[in-house]
């Protein structure tokens, strides 16, 4: 990135915008393609690696309008097909270009409940922006219209206007729906079902609501105030939110229907089961799942030393295993908690990394050291059982595997040692078996995910599911999309009953 300050970026945009406005916003395709892609203003890497404030600062209004002016208004809208919830991208982007931010956010909200979240965390480069005509014409996905940033811009703009209007709720129907889990899938179901006038109760295992958006994704990427604002909107709509309620223990799922009088249950319990590598030394002191490390840091606020009662390891040299968003978040959190060296160990190459491109770039800028085509072989410890180092193997890429990616193959005899005091395992999450173990009749696949049809109907009557518990560890927007469809099916079922 250029390292330009937000003020400089805005000034440049203001000039370009003056030209565009002089032409009344009517531009030729070649003129649109010539508008420079707007860079996201962000905190300086040296400053931000020591604070927890948000890294990306958001476009100014001028930048947003310039960026929106790059859109070619394609008739066939390939971008929309790339968005899991089919946002009317062309139209909301056009509204931004026309300086009608209110119209833009209204268009988005018809389809999405969480634009401020999705604009920040969607893997845009592999979804909406992947097929954008501008990116294609310029032969660089990175130069596609920055749809996510524009979405974020109008969502933030709306919040800055003050409390968004609480969505209207239809008269009470007397029907009761329980939503298990308060991640994006659950929140969307709660909103959509409540709107139809049904009585909705969200049951959440943690003491706070928001799922991974709260306990997993760090503040510097997704400010928690955004998530709590969405939760408060639900409360204002009359959704009941019950914390510290673990379905499968506090109550069995079937009892919610049979004893507690719920007419439908939606299960959005996420993918909460950390995978470990099953290598020697993995239970040493100083080895954490990313879930544990991030939960201590985010939900339990361990980074607020002196205030939080929950301790977190005081790591100096950290190895993070994995190449997804979770790994990036863990690595960057470790830096912010004072680590001197953070190594990211990933067994494939940068091209195969599942993390969002922006996060990889940010991690590099902040000083995370990437060890690609490497993998952990075992973790070494001292007499007190504390981690002292990690032995790794070098890998090379072989033939493509079942996923179509070239499979990494270890190179014999290539072991090397990295001295570290902390190892964070971020190689993915499976599905938490609790509901499976305690809900006879509910069908699961081999990987432990709930089996359901495209409308979220499971093998049990009145029980619906969606999000990571169905998809395996996926994305916020996919979870939201599934929630939407399940909510429609629930509303449908209740209207017929």
């Amino acid at each position, binding site marked *: 990135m250029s390292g330009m300050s937000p003020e400089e970026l805005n000034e440049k945009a203001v000039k370009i915008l003056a030209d565009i406005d002089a032409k009344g916003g009517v531009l030729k395709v070649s003129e649109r393609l010539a508008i420079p892609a707007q860079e996201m203003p962000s905190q300086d890497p040296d400053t931000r690696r020591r604070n927890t404030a948000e890294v990306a600062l958001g476009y100014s209004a001028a930048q947003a309008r310039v960026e929106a002016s790059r859109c070619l208004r394609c008739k066939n809208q390939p971008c929309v097909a790339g968005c899991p919830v089919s946002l009317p991208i062309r139209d909301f982007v056009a509204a931004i270009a026309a300086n009608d931010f209110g119209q833009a956010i209204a268009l988005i909200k018809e389809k999405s409940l969480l634009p401020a979240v999705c604009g920040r965390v969607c893997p845009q480069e592999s979804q909406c922006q992947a097929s954008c005509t501008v990116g294609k014409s310029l032969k660089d996905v990175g130069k596609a219209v920055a749809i996510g940033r524009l979405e974020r811009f109008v969502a933030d703009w709306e919040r800055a206007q003050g409390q968004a209007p609480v969505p209207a709720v239809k008269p009470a129907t007397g029907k009761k729906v329980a939503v298990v889990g308060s991640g994006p899938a659950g929140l969307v179901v709660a909103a959509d079902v409540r709107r139809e006038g049904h009585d909705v109760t969200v049951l959440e*295992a*943690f*003491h706070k609501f928001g799922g991974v958006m709260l306990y997993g994704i760090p503040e510097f990427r997704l400010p928690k105030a955004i998530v709590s604002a969405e939760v408060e909107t639900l409360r204002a709509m009359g959704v009941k939110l*019950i*914390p*510290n*309620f*673990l379905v499968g*223990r*506090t*109550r069995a799922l079937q009892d919610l229907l049979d004893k507690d009088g719920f007419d439908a249950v939606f299960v959005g319990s996420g993918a*909460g*089961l*950390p995978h*470990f590598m*099953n290598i020697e030394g*993995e*239970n*040493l*002191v*100083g080895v*954490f*799942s990313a*879930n*544990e490390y991030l*939960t*201590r840091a985010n939900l*339990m*606020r361990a980074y*607020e030393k002196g*205030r*939080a*009662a*929950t*301790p977190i*390891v*005081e790591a100096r040299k950290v190895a993070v295993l994995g190449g997804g968003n979770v790994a990036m978040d863990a690595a960057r959190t470790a830096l912010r908690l004072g680590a001197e060296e953070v190594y990211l160990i990933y067994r494939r190459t940068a091209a195969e990394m599942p993390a969002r491109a922006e996060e990889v770039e940010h991690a590099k800028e902040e000083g995370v050291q990437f060890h690609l085509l490497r993998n952990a072989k075992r973790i070494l410890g001292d007499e*007190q*059982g*504390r981690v002292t180092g990690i032995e790794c193997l070098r890998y090379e890429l072989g033939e493509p595997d079942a996923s179509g990616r070239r499979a990494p193959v270890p190179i014999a005899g290539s072991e090397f040692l990295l001295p570290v005091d902390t190892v964070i395992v971020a190689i993915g999450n499976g599905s*938490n*078996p*609790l509901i499976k173990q305690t809900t006879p009749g509910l069908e699961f696949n081999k990987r432990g995910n709930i089996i359901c049809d495209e409308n979220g109907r499971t093998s049990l009557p009145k029980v619906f599911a969606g999000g990571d518990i169905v998809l395996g560890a996926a994305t916020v927007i996919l979870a939201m999309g599934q929630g939407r469809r399940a909510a429609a099916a629930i509303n449908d079922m209740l209207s017929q009953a």
Partner: protein
Amino acid sequence: MNPTDYAILSKRQLSENVFMMSINAPYIATERKPGQFILLSVDESYGERIPLTIADADPVAGSISIIFQKVGLTTTLLAGLEVGDRLAAVLGHLGQPTHITKVGTVVCVGGGIGVAPMRPIAKGFKDAGNRLICILGARNKDLLILEDEIRAFADEVIICTDDGSAGRKALVTAPLKELCERTPRPDLSVAIGPPVMMKFCAETVRPYGVPLIVSLNTIMVDGTGMCGGCRVTVGGETKFVCVDGPEFDGLKVDFDGMIKRLQAYRSQEQRMAAESGEHQCRMRAQAELLEKKK
């Protein structure tokens, strides 16, 4: 009453550092079983979530009781709360219930605060028709808890203190060994207490082939199987204490690994507790004594 209004309904001090409280928690009160536990926190924003065994429950009143020892920050803050105060969070009931069956003679060993989680399990075995022998261990007479309550249902009670101020001057492993040498041997043993005590109970019963159940008190965060912070090695496999346990086959647990993991945050916790004005470490003192005597 509101099920998420975790009001403290009663409070009693059982010994210098041990307290018993009952808490409003109707969901948990009706469904919990012996061996299960809760996670609680005393502060919504900054509190730590700590695991405590459900010592008893009153389904009619919708309350559960806990018995805890002041050892660090959260238990000290908890001990400072009074009737009418409210906890920020109570999650439960967690863990697998004890597998209670009729086997014949059962010996239950409780060390220190471990007597509290042992009591509902011991009572469960008695109610299932077993002959029940309880061994209660403490550093001294004043730290002995729940003796009368356990005498009320056990067939035989053996008291051990480190200094001989009550019962025998011995570690709990001494009477346990004698019981194993009796004929007939106990059919099952249960040990709950400091990890070192459980470790030596395992070594004591192993040669006699008496099965041992232990209840592990690892460090926890979520209590739902999401973080893996509570993991232990049992029979060479990694297990999550909060969902797979807390009870395991004591002869298979890697206690040394577990003890090391329990100390992961020791220096930070001591700092936090020192800052909060109080620090006690009775469990560790007792543990060190056991190590020395071995």
